[in-house]
């Protein structure tokens, strides 16, 4: 209980977002370009944090599908901004040792001669500690 609890609090703290403000309108999910790729949908992130089911969140593949495009953040009418919650969950994962979503030895496979530095830098920031 206390561990789960502290993780939910951690997510609230890192994200600076208050899930209690959510009115469950779904505008985040209606705006999300990655919606179909996600197993836990943006609007559900709020209830997972509220229900303190952080385990499911951190195991969710949604973490790696969010583009950080800020569409949900821009349009959320209640300032809940699920994108921040998703990022906080992602932080919880990548801050643990050995949990990087992108391993250095995968990279040669993934790039081509035109790949801009920006792509690698951004992916590193999002996927690794």
């Amino acid at each position, binding site marked *: 209980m206390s561990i789960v609890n502290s993780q939910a609090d951690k997510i609230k703290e890192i994200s600076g977002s208050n899930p209690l403000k959510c009115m469950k309108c779904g505008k985040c999910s*209606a705006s999300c370009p990655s919606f179909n790729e996600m197993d836990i949908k943006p609007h559900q992130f709020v209830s997972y944090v509220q229900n303190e089911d952080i385990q499911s969140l951190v195991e969710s593949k949604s973490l790696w599908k969010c583009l950080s495009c800020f569409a949900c953040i821009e349009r959320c009418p209640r300032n809940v901004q699920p994108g921040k919650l998703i990022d906080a969950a992602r932080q919880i994962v990548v801050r643990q040792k050995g949990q990087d979503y992108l391993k250095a030895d995968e990279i040669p496979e993934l790039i081509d001669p035109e790949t801009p530095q920006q792509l690698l830098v951004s992916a590193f920031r999002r996927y690794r500690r």
Partner: protein
Amino acid sequence: MQRIGVFVCHCGSNIAATVDVKKVAEWALKEPGVVHAEDYPYMCSEAGQSKIQAAIKEKNLTGVVVCSCSPRMHETTFREAAERAGINPYMVEIANIREHCSWIHKDMEEATKKAVILMRAAVAKVNLNTPLKPGESRVTKRALVIGGGIAGIQTALDIAEAGYKVDIVEKTPSIGGRMSQLDKTFPTLDCSACILTPKMVEVNKHENVNIYTYSEVEKVSGFVGDFTVDIRKKARSVDMDKCTGCGVCQEKCPSKKTPSEFNRALNTRTAIYTPFAQAIPNVPVIDREACIKFKTGKCGICEKVCQAGAIKYDQEDEIITEKYGAIVVATGFDMIKLDNYDEYAYSQSKDVITSLELERIMNAAGPTKGHLERLSDGKAPKEMVFIQCVGSRCSDDRGKSYCSKICCMYTAKHAMLIRDKYPDVNVTVFYIDVRTPGKNFDEFYRRAVEDYGVNYIKGQVGKVIPQPDGKLLVRGVDLIDNKQILKEADMVVLAAAIEPNKDVRKIATMLTASIDTNNFLTEAHAKLRPVESPTAGIFLSGVCQGPKDIPETVSQAGAAAVKAIGLLAKDKLMTNPCTAKPDELMCNGCSQCANVCPYGAISYEVKEINDHGVRETRRVASVNSALCQGCGACTVTCPSGAMDLQGFSNRQILAEVDAICR
């Protein structure tokens, strides 16, 4: 020395559950001046009041402290009770141990301690109270109604029917307001104009009603019963008495490009215009910004074609000054601007419209003569999407925090009307919640779903995407199916939030009526005085006080009228005796108090003063207690401390401070 009685109310368990009322009464007896203390379950009840009255008589009380709810609730009750028992009503003070104590604290000991301190402060104050006598002021038997929509019309009619004179001031060229723009009304689907027009005619011909259209309130002074109001009657450029309303001027006017306010800018009007066919008065105005004659000096066609010779280019604004006993605010609402909601493509596509625009499109007198068609290409739509809560229920800074209340119902109405008249049109409504409290309201919404096959989807829309072929791709979510939805639509209708008319803040300031952060006027009490402003003599009618539909507006309009009539029926009003009073011995006649007085209540007189045996002629301040409203600005400004406020004197407030900090 006062003989004070302290009466501690349990308020059922509202107070007694958190405050040990017996202890408060016990402690009261230790306070100086207190000769009697008791507690009772309901002090405000008949029995409770009798207890106070009995104690006043038996113990020869000179002052009373009631420890109970807020003085805003029952101060008058207890003052009247005391007066009936023979002491001056202003010898009663309330210690607010409910709203300011028992309701906000949980710990009994802590709350009891605080209640004792609040009781002590009130006792300390009463020790210094002096009997005060209210003055009298007259009541002007005439009411002013600001706003000529359905709220203003109904209020004016009700007041007029009771036999009092009423003036309506309406900003636009015609009365009728928002309701005149509606096509049909829920939940009966009767035609809006058919039920409104008779009311407009009735109010116009009523002998007790006088209507100033194209006019605005410019200045308000005075107070309850005796307001003085300046009304600016804007130059209509048309002689109201001569005009026959034939309409030839409008047919011939060559300036035809101004967006029509009445049709929500969906089409245009001429520079000389009446807003709509049933306008009252049926006299056009010249929009001087659009008129060629006013812009270039050339033209003058309307003057030439007017058989009645009613065109008056040189007409000027007129200021009318009138006295009123009561003022009713009925300034209504508008839809919010959708500049902050470009994700719905309102500014990018002509086929994304607001609900009020749809009303005009559905209306036979509207820009499309009542045919449902796309404004971009005039084609009949096959798929229509409605989006709810656009700008309502938002806690970001883009929209409004409140629910606009009317949208769920009018959307069900629109959906039903469209499905009824155009059965081949599919209608989809994206909603967050469907809110239908009200008589026959939920049944109405269910009819839309069950009988008319309107497709309600729980979920919001994220973006409306105009397509190259002119269609609109709506990207929304179905929260029940947990699916993102891409729906191609021909028209999208946005249920934009409503907001109080933008002039209301200016008007509230003139009236010194309170207004909340959303620009709705505040009522004196949310439940018990919902149609009165906290400012005496100001009443609230319609959406200016909060979102409402037509039946609610009409009920509130009637209620506001009753309150105004209740005031007008009085010949005299008691004035607040808590007014400023100078100590002539201390006053040096410096005029600083007169400079800060917002009411001009302070003047100076040269007077012979007996200053400790020395007779001198001095200039001293004098307060007109009929004008003084008792704010106390002068008392603090006075450099010699000569000015004091009766009922809230320096000594009284200092005694309260002392009691609290003891």
